[in-house]
């Protein structure tokens, strides 16, 4: 279980998160929804160790992670698909996947995991020798998810996987999320696309200006009048 307790974080004198607490149980899919600038990406960056927390603590399966650098957090079983995918544009698709398996524990199983990712996303195998930066947005998202899965994480963090993609591709990306859930992965997903994300997660938190405003089962939040009005345009 991933547990965040009273996490504060920010950049310089700007504070983005104020005492955020949340938890994700193994096997669950949890969403964090909220408007632009609410601190969703900051939250993900704190969990994956890219940004040190200024206050509070978080742990995974009882192990304290708060002060660990990013490369140690991946080793603890948390992989992060960053906002805007952040593939290595001039490396090929397969080289990007190789980077996802950089950890010694993953390197040993590189061949079998590569075969597994190619089975999951046949499109990536077709494009394996192509520089990742030359693919379409949807394919790049596939590659970014594949790269994160190469470390066989226990939790997959996904930051705005649908951002910047055409509507048709957004549907495909949410299908990908469903398939990853189907593979038994625990997922924590941050999205602005509230309607669709609530269809794929079990529970969700509403983050506004750095505070958790609401939390509950996805179906419940989808019926909440405030959320429907503010985030679903209904």
């Amino acid at each position, binding site marked *: 279980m991933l547990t965040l307790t009273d996490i504060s974080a920010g950049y310089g004198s700007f504070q983005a998160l104020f005492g955020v607490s949340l938890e994700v149980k193994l096997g669950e899919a949890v969403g964090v929804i909220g408007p632009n600038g609410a601190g969703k990406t900051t939250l993900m960056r704190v969990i994956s160790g890219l940004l040190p927390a200024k206050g509070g603590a978080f742990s995974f399966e009882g192990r304290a992670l708060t002060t660990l650098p990013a490369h140690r957090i991946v080793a603890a079983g948390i992989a992060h698909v960053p906002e805007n995918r952040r593939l*290595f544009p001039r490396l090929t698709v397969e080289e990007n996947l190789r980077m996802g398996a950089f950890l010694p524990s993953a390197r040993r199983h590189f061949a079998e995991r590569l075969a597994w990712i190619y089975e999951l996303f046949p499109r990536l195998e077709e494009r394996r020798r192509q520089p990742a930066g030359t693919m379409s947005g949807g394919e790049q998202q596939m590659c970014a998810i594949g790269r994160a899965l190469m470390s066989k994480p226990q939790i997959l963090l996904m930051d705005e996987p649908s951002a910047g993609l055409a509507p048709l591709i957004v549907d495909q990306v949410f299908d990908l999320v469903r398939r990853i859930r189907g593979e038994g992965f625990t997922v924590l997903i941050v999205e602005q696309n509230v309607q669709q994300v609530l269809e794929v997660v079990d529970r969700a938190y509403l983050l506004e200006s750095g505070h958790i405003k609401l939390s509950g089962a996805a179906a419940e939040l989808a019926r909440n009048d405030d959320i429907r009005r503010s985030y679903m345009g209904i």
Partner: protein
Amino acid sequence: MDIYLLEAVINGVLLGGVLALLALGLNLIFGVVDVVWIAYAELVMFGMYAVYWLTNVYGWPVLLACVAAILFVALLGVLVHLLIIEPILGSAPINQLLATGGLLFFLQSLATLLFGTDFRNLGIRLPIIELGDIFISFSRLLAFIVALLGASALYLFLSRTFLGTAIRAVAQDREIMGLMGVDQRRIYLITSAIGGGLAGLAACLLMLQYDVHPFIGLTFGPITFMICVLGGLGNMIGGFVAAFIISQIIAISGYYVSIEASYVLAFVVFIVLVLIRPQGILGK
């Protein structure tokens, strides 16, 4: 074709090999760590002294001395990173230039203090190869072949291994390397060791052909930077190509005019090309 011109062209190609090796090392470090080691050729100088000292003073076999010199300069590379680069990694590029520039003067003075200003060489005379009417120095040919082997080994390492791929990846997106489980600091140290090792290899090859003295770095340093900028700073393939362009300019104009004029001409061509393509011939 004039037989002497052909000889000049061949010598130009052979010279290009070692220059390409130097450019590879400098470009690798710039591309990955994002810092220009102004004192790169001074590390080469220390490598040359290492080869000289081990063979001529301690009587080591040349090959063993070369291996030791490569490891020694690789260690120097790691020290340069730890002592000079790492503390100022986040500061302005101009400060980094000043720091590695300061290192250049420090190393030159240190060498003068330790070794004096004498010109020293290995005292080995390698044979001259005769191909019909063309004379080729065996030491240059050897230097060229080993430089190409070194460059190929680097290429294979960067393209085939996890670590090599990570080194290329850092140059494309520094920030997210941690998400791949990569310790960026470790990558910087390894890259600095490889950059130093390449300088050490170049030192061995240059020691076959030249005398070492505390200011030998001035002979190769500026021209290596020129090659790197011409090829697009950080672009390893560009630097490789530019090394052969510059060495040909030097060799051919050296044949038609004079060796002194050839360096002047090389810099003129450099200035003109950089005015036309400031991003380098293969830069983006």
